């Protein structure tokens, strides 16, 4: 996929707002591409700027008042950030679709489900409401909704969350877009429904060559879905890597923590689930140097003064002064509580084999 023209190309994206004296940046220097047919996962903790990045791509931050967006978002060679609203509207729905974290809230509670699908279908199709009835049913069955005729007459509160998400996907697909931005599409769903929705997305990618920018904090979802993984921390990208490489040789201590915090059923031996101590810094008080250094067990003096750039590390990119060491070390140190222990010690410390799985 590497030498193909990217479908979506984000360059130097920054999102900030003007505080009392200074500008606070919520997202900074974010650059990435999404190739046609590629699934790219944007992962990171809550508050790392994933959702804002996704919203900025479709121009949802335009009327948000105080948020200022700079940088470039190019879709199919056209610049979206400076495009007039009127033109952007034609791209929305037809070329870029979006689904949201809370499917129940993303549907209008007072409008019947079928009418909401029809709204998208009418606008994006022939324009005649009557003629779109068949199209609505077709869209709804395409995303695996049983009895679409019945469901279409129901209100959002009458159907389940998983069903709502399917309806949203149907709406997003009405215009047959090339790119789908999925903002934590499965977070509000239970595990079986999550699997179904993810399966649906993979199918759509295979059948229609749909590109997906999948925003998630669930490393399991990322591992299953992604071709490439982008890791965000405190508003910056800290690592970009192909999925297999990312899980085998993460190039950033934060990524390493994320990877190792995933509970695995097939783990060879019982181990205590590691956790990354501390929390993401508030946007207002991002530490100097590497934003991750206060939580990083590998920090050096240089980490506290110089912010590492996103540089090539193996097949991907990583923003860490010690990324080669992190990548190269076969006997990877792991995160365990606040301690920094190696796998050999973890092997002996089997006590916490039933560690609870939390959000990374």
């Amino acid at each position: 996929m590497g030498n193909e023209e990217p479908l979506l190309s984000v360059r130097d994206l920054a999102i900030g707002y003007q505080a009392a004296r200074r500008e606070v940046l919520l997202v900074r220097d974010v650059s990435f591409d999404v190739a046609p047919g590629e699934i790219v996962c944007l992962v990171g903790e809550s508050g790392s700027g994933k959702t804002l990045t996704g919203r900025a791509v479709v121009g949802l931050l335009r009327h948000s008042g105080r948020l200022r967006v700079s940088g470039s978002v190019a879709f199919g060679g056209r610049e979206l950030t400076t495009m007039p609203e009127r033109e952007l509207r034609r791209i929305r729905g037809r070329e870029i679709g979006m689904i949201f974290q809370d499917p129940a809230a993303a549907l209008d509670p007072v409008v019947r489900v079928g009418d909401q699908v029809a709204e998208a279908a009418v606008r994006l199709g022939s324009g005649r409401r009557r003629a779109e009835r068949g199209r609505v049913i077709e869209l709804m069955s395409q995303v695996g909704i049983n009895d679409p005729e019945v469901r279409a007459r129901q209100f959002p509160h009458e159907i389940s969350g998983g069903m709502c998400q399917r309806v949203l996907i149907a709406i997003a697909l009405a215009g047959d877009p090339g790119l789908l931005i999925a903002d934590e599409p499965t977070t509000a769903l239970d595990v079986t429904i999550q699997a179904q929705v993810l399966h649906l997305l993979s199918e759509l990618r295979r059948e229609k060559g749909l590109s997906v920018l999948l925003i998630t904090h669930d490393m399991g979802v990322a591992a299953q879905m992604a071709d490439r993984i982008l890791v965000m921390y405190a508003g910056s990208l800290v690592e970009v890597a192909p999925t297999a490489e990312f899980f085998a040789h993460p190039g950033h201590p934060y990524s390493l923590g994320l990877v190792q915090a995933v509970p695995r059923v097939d783990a060879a031996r019982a181990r205590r689930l590691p956790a990354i101590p501390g929390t993401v810094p508030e946007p207002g008080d991002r530490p100097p140097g590497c934003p991750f250094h206060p939580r990083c067990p590998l920090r050096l003096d240089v980490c506290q003064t110089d912010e590492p750039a996103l540089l090539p590390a193996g097949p991907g990119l990583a923003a860490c002064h010690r990324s080669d060491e992190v990548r190269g070390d076969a006997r990877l140190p792991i995160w365990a509580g606040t301690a920094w222990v190696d796998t050999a010690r973890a092997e002996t410390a089997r006590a916490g084999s039933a560690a609870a799985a939390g959000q990374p």
Partner: protein
Amino acid sequence: MDNTTAPAGTATSVLPLLAGRWGGRPVWRRRWLPRGRLMRWLAIAFLALLAGWALVPGLFASGSPTAVNPVAALLGPSGHYLLGTDQYGRSVYTELVYGARPALEVGLACTLIGGLTGSAVGIIGGYLGGWADMAVMRLIDILLALPGLFLALIFIAALPRTVPNEILAISISTVPIFARVLRGQALQVRSLLFIDAATVTGVRRRAIVWRHVVPNCMAPAVVLAAVNIGVAIVVAASLNFLGLGPSEGVLDWGALIASGQNYINQDWWISVFPGLTVALLVIAVSIIGDWLRDAMEPSSG
């Protein structure tokens, strides 16, 4: 005392005086009326009675409200004249019954005109925001600083006294409340996720307002309208009482109260019964309004 009058839904607080502030309605909006099912049904029954008067007055009162009978002037309440007669010998009861229709017409017309205008201003301002919204809302602030009756007074004073002008004046006084409430609602709806979802589907802003914002603003508008019909009737009656209503020929409760003013010491029934009707209307409307608001509160689904 605060504890005994606190509404049932309010959590009992260590600071009874402040309970209302955190526990729901502010202290000054405490319900002072006995509430509950009985009061609600009494209110509904009274409003139904007034509606009956307005729709089929002939069914409730015999004879004409304008039939003058000097022989029967200023008679007290009796079996024949239920609420007595006025200085021209007209039955006060019949006048009350026949006064309901014009009152209701004014109430409905003002609510419709003022409510629609106010809602439109509020929703457009709230959804679009920006400069125009600021300007309009400051104007609304100024209008809201004056009580509705006062506002209507100002406009009616400048206009010839006809029924349409009376309706116009009261409608104008209705606009600010609707604008304010609906703007708040539209602001809230605008920030909901399904508006973003419609936006990223490429739906036009105008279509978003009509299909998503307006329907989601209906609940508070309906409550406000229901209450406002009663309020408008009372304002109209007050204007008429002050002699600022339509100059001739319209039967009106306010004018009726005013006409009994000179006789209030002895022949009290001319003013008191119409006054009582208006007062009961206000109470009934506020009970129904409270009930509707509680029933439509988003938190209760």
